[in-house]
């Protein structure tokens, strides 16, 4: 059986593009009302537009995951797990990032899996094999494993770190503090799980700690330097210093 795992490359490509979008346009997601922002090319976009575009991209990813689910129907998915686990982790990272931007909280494994329920669109259908199968038999699900969820969330922390830096660049001084709290919660969660999780999680813990350290240092600097100057001036000050902490490191 040859599985269409090139789907995965599709997933990776889309998500790569997605992160590119979310990052490079320096969208100020923090404000309750949407801001108008400059596209690199010179056009102007609405933050909500960017998020909606991300939603559409993610729908595309979900479609591909649906195809995988269909292919794996009746198979032991663990036999092929190694082949699609990187793509799924990327998906978790992307979905949880978007969820944080919108709702400022961590998406749960249930919420993720709830969106991975697909209607069975077999090609056999048009051939008229209208067997009297109950409707729910046509429902296909894809279950993200708890370990893929954890690994995706671990990667999310890298995105959050970069978001912190770009927030500083946008003169948004609340987001970094919010982010540091959220990151600490995730960090504490991971240290609660400790070495009982899969081996790969322990490996990512070091990077997670580094990201947290960078965000904590950024907040520290904001507080210390911020004490010297009127609050309202901070925005302008930091806007030219988006590279406060090397944001290139460990992208994706």
């Amino acid at each position, binding site marked *: 059986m040859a599985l269409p795992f090139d789907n995965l490359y599709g997933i990776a490509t889309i998500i790569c593009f997605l992160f590119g979008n979310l990052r490079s346009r320096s969208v100020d997601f923090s404000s309750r009302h949407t801001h108008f922002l400059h596209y690199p090319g010179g056009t102007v976009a609405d933050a909500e537009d960017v998020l909606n575009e991300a939603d559409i991209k993610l729908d595309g990813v979900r479609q591909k995951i649906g195809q995988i689910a269909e292919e794996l129907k009746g198979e032991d998915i*663990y036999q092929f797990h190694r082949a699609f686990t990187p793509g799924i982790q990327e998906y978790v990272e992307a979905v949880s990032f978007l969820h944080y931007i919108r709702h400022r909280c961590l998406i749960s*494994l249930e919420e993720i899996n709830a969106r991975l329920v697909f209607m069975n669109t077999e090609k056999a259908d048009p051939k008229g094999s209208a067997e009297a199968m109950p409707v729910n038999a046509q429902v296909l699900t894809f279950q993200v494993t708890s370990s893929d969820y954890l690994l995706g969330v671990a990667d999310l922390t890298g995105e959050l770190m970069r978001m912190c830096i770009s927030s500083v660049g946008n003169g948004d001084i609340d987001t970094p503090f919010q982010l540091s709290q959220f990151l600490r919660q995730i960090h504490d969660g991971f240290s609660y*799980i400790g070495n009982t999780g899969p081996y790969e999680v322990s490996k990512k813990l070091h990077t997670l700690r580094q990201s947290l350290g960078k965000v904590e240092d950024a907040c520290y600097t904001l507080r210390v330097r911020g004490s010297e100057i009127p609050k309202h001036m901070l925005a302008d000050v930091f806007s030219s210093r988006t590279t406060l902490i090397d944001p290139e490191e460990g992208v994706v």
Partner: protein
Amino acid sequence: MSVTEMFSYIQGFLSADQDIREDIRKVVQTLEQTAREILTVLQSVHQPSGFKEIPSKCAKARELFCTVRTQIAELKTKFPMEQYYRFHEHWRFVLQRLAFLAAFVVYLESETLVKREEVAQILGIEVVREKGFHLDVEDYLAGVLIMASELSRLAVNSVTAGDYNRPLRISNFINELDSGFRLLNLKNDPLRKRYDGLKYDVKKIEEVVYDLSIRGLAKEPEAAGEK
């Protein structure tokens, strides 16, 4: 649900997984113990005195395979069957050893190559993946290759025991096996490496046959060849 609660919830999943693995590990240990016992029984064929006892030793080994079947039956109860590959790593090693032992028993009994179906039957498992706990082709082949190495040792020890015919028969068998493997397009890394070892076994057995030929101790190699 707070972040803390969510992580506690996930932790539950992880614990359940660990418990399953712990259970599997325990049964696999008993399997390994039985495999070692079967090996000890079969090892006696290398002893000069052991050649006459081959039938009784094989019978003894067959009995021990009953225990294996019971243990595998218990192993099956430890995890949901459709997650065979999730936990495969835990028993792959012992399964290959068992496939080797089954192949070795069958060879000693009938000097033929065991089929995958036979191994599966001896171990009380399936051949077809869909039916549950089964014997993958790779694991079957690995078992056969372990046997090839055991046979090269047996050829040497047969001479010691004064049986000058057996090495010729082993030589034919191994050559046939080697031809068979050469038809396979092995990409799988661990299997390919094991197969490279087969060449060494072939060479070793050929040396034994040469030593016998040169001294006129090998009777009727043609007869052995026509078999």
